[in-house]
């Protein structure tokens, strides 16, 4: 069988349908099979990334109907990079969630099905080249996220899930209306075709559709003020799911947002809109984070804030900025993953997951604390860890565009970030743990997962060149609209395509 991008979707789906039957053979299979599937996807990623780096974008046609008639998957350096990153993170999260908490086999089965589908959904969002298919994958992601958020069946989990569902439904409604209007205007659902025909759409319709997309996808990308659900969902979902949200789901949302703005539409002001909303998101999230008592909630706000930076960087829109933004997406996935993973173990047994009970955990849980500290150092962008490089690239790009005020804003907010992260780190390393605090021994899978992430942080920090070529290609691929359209529709007329940046 030829390795092709459709494996990302088909194989996990097949496995998901199979798993209820496998569970009847042996209970452990429900835990192992997703790992194997994701491992296989990792293999697919390696093969495909090599192909893409060598020969350029792969367009996978579904059901034999060439674009624009059928659905296609576009595996460009950009989408491929994101998909590979998500696969890798999914594997790490699988390792981490393997026997994370002792649950019955039946919920475990459901957990792993939902988790695998969540991964599939996010990868599908990234890979698909069809706007309605995009919506379908968004819903797959959304429904599995809702279910996973409430997975512990506790009070707050259900509340968080309901909020998520409420706002998420708004998002799908808006996106659906947008797709509807778009279809009436261009008569197609293929993104490349839409991009080609966008020129002929009257401006006011363009703006109307864009607004609906921006609101809908803004919800998924956790843009302020549409992100009320996010901190709740992050903090109440089971820890591995929280990691998944930070590492995969929100990335998919941001991907959607920038795909719409960069490729589909040629409306002026969208980039500036991204910058402004990114800045507002950043500020609001970080300011909310500094006063949090609960560690996971703090991490959630921090995650939102980082997405704000990503949006700003995409909004700047130059090659360096986009490079920095993609780099930051990668770093954020890895680092926030590590932070959520280690943080969850730190607050495993503390009341309300509050930070104030963490005094002295550095001695009792040295490894986990080390991981958390490493993550904290990296996420605030301190060298020589991974986060530093992306920050540097973004700032350089902003400076090249004379956006000094913006840089000052990002850095000023970074100080806030430093405050609340180092509060925790400082607390970990002094004092004595209060009596009766029970340390949770991490699972082997968890330790391996965190070690992997820590190694990535260090390696990328010390030698960013392991990852930068891929990101460079990704940035080029994202910015080159004509190339995208050409690879999907080789015969398309590219003369009317406007590249705003």
């Amino acid at each position, binding site marked *: 069988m030829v390795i092709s991008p459709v494996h990302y979707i088909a194989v996990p789906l097949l496995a998901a349908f199979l798993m209820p039957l496998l569970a009847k053979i042996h209970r452990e299979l429900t835990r192992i099979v997703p790992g194997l599937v994701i491992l296989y996807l990792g293999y697919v990623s390696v093969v495909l990334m090599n192909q893409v780096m060598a020969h350029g974008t792969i367009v996978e046609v579904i059901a034999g109907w060439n674009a624009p008639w*059928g659905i296609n998957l576009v595996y460009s350096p950009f989408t491929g990079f994101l998909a590979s990153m998500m696969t890798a993170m999914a594997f790490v999260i699988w390792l981490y969630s393997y026997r994370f908490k002792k649950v019955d086999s*039946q919920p475990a089965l459901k957990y792993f099905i939902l988790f695998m*589908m969540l991964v599939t959904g996010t990868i599908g969002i990234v890979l698909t080249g069809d706007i309605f*298919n995009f919506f379908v994958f968004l819903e797959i992601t959304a429904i599995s996220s809702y279910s996973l958020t409430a997975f512990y069946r506790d009070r707050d989990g259900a509340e968080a899930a309901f909020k998520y569902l409420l706002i998420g439904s708004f998002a799908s409604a808006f996106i659906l209306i947008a797709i509807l209007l778009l279809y009436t205007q261009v*008569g197609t659902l293929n993104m490349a075709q839409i991009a080609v025909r966008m020129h002929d759409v009257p401006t006011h319709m363009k703006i109307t559709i864009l607004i609906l997309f921006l609101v809908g996808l803004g919800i998924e990308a956790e843009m302020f003020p549409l992100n009320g659900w996010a901190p709740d969902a992050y903090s109440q979902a089971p820890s591995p799911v929280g990691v998944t949200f930070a590492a995969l789901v929100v990335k998919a949302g941001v991907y959607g947002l920038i795909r719409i703005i960069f490729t589909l539409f040629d409306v002026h002001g969208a980039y500036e809109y991204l910058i402004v909303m990114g800045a507002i998101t950043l500020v609001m999230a970080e300011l909310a984070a500094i006063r949090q008592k609960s560690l996971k909630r703090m991490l959630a706000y921090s995650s939102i804030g980082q997405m704000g930076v990503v949006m700003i960087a995409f909004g700047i829109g130059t090659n360096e900025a986009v490079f920095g933004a993609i780099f930051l997406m990668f770093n954020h996935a890895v680092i926030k993953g590590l932070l959520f993973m280690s943080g969850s173990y730190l607050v495993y047994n503390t009341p309300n997951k509050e930070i104030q009970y963490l005094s002295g955990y550095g001695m009792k849980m040295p490894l986990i604390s080390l991981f958390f500290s490493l993550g904290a150092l990296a996420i605030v962008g301190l060298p020589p860890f991974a986060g530093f490089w992306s920050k540097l690239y973004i700032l350089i790009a902003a400076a090249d565009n004379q956006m000094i005020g913006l840089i000052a804003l990002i850095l000023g907010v970074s100080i806030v970030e430093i405050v609340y992260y180092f509060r925790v780190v400082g607390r970990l390393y002094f004092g004595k743990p209060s009596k009766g605090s029970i340390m949770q021994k991490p699972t082997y899978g968890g330790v391996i997962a965190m070690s992997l992430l820590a190694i990535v942080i260090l390696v990328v920090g010390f030698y960013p060149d392991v990852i930068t070529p891929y990101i460079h290609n990704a940035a080029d691929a994202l910015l080159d609209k004509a190339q995208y359209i050409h690879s999907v529709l080789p015969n398309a007329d590219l003369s009317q395509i406007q590249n705003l940046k």
Partner: protein
Amino acid sequence: MKKLLIILLLAVVGYFLTVSMSNIKFGANRMGDLSQPKTVGAFYLSKTPGELSVANVITAIVVNYRGFDTLGEVSVLFLAATGLGSILYKKKKKGEHIPTVNKPSSALLQAGSKLIFPAILVLGAYVFIHGHLTPGGGFQGGAIIATGFLLMMMSYKDFTMNHSVITWVESLAGITFASIGLIGLIVDHSFLENFLPIGYINDLISGGIIPLIYVAVGFKVAAELSGVLDTLLSIKEK
């Protein structure tokens, strides 16, 4: 006050939607010329009879042109069922049965249900088997079958769905769908691509893999909807 504000906001939204829709003439033909299709709609209408031999264009779209969507759609259902199960999961004691309805329904209803149940099942099966020929299809058929089960659940206090059977059905149906897609990938290098002879239009056996997939979808939808209903109905009131 808040009410007024919200009504005002909604008025703006409504105005916005109305203005947008006013640009889209109702009943206008936006598909263009069918012989040289520029839009997907025109393309599907013009190509379906010849290339797929499927009478129902919508079925052709749902199962073949945009079969990938449908696969996702099936997954959504599957996920909803799974998610529902995980959210409402309760460890059952062995042999415990939670009755769907507290009071037994009347004899008339019970008898009527029993009488009509097979007919509903047959109708459902008909709808999804003929999905490529007539209006309807896997989803509709599956939904019809699920209503049959709903009827039975409401009529009989101790009517139980066999969870094992549901699991098997939905899994096998899902696997069938995905496998057919993968076979297409292997045989014709394209996921979900038709690899069977397409036959003649309006024959029962025509359209290649389309009927097969729709049957699988039908089973799957039926099983999942029934499963969902069963889960929702078997919640014990506090």
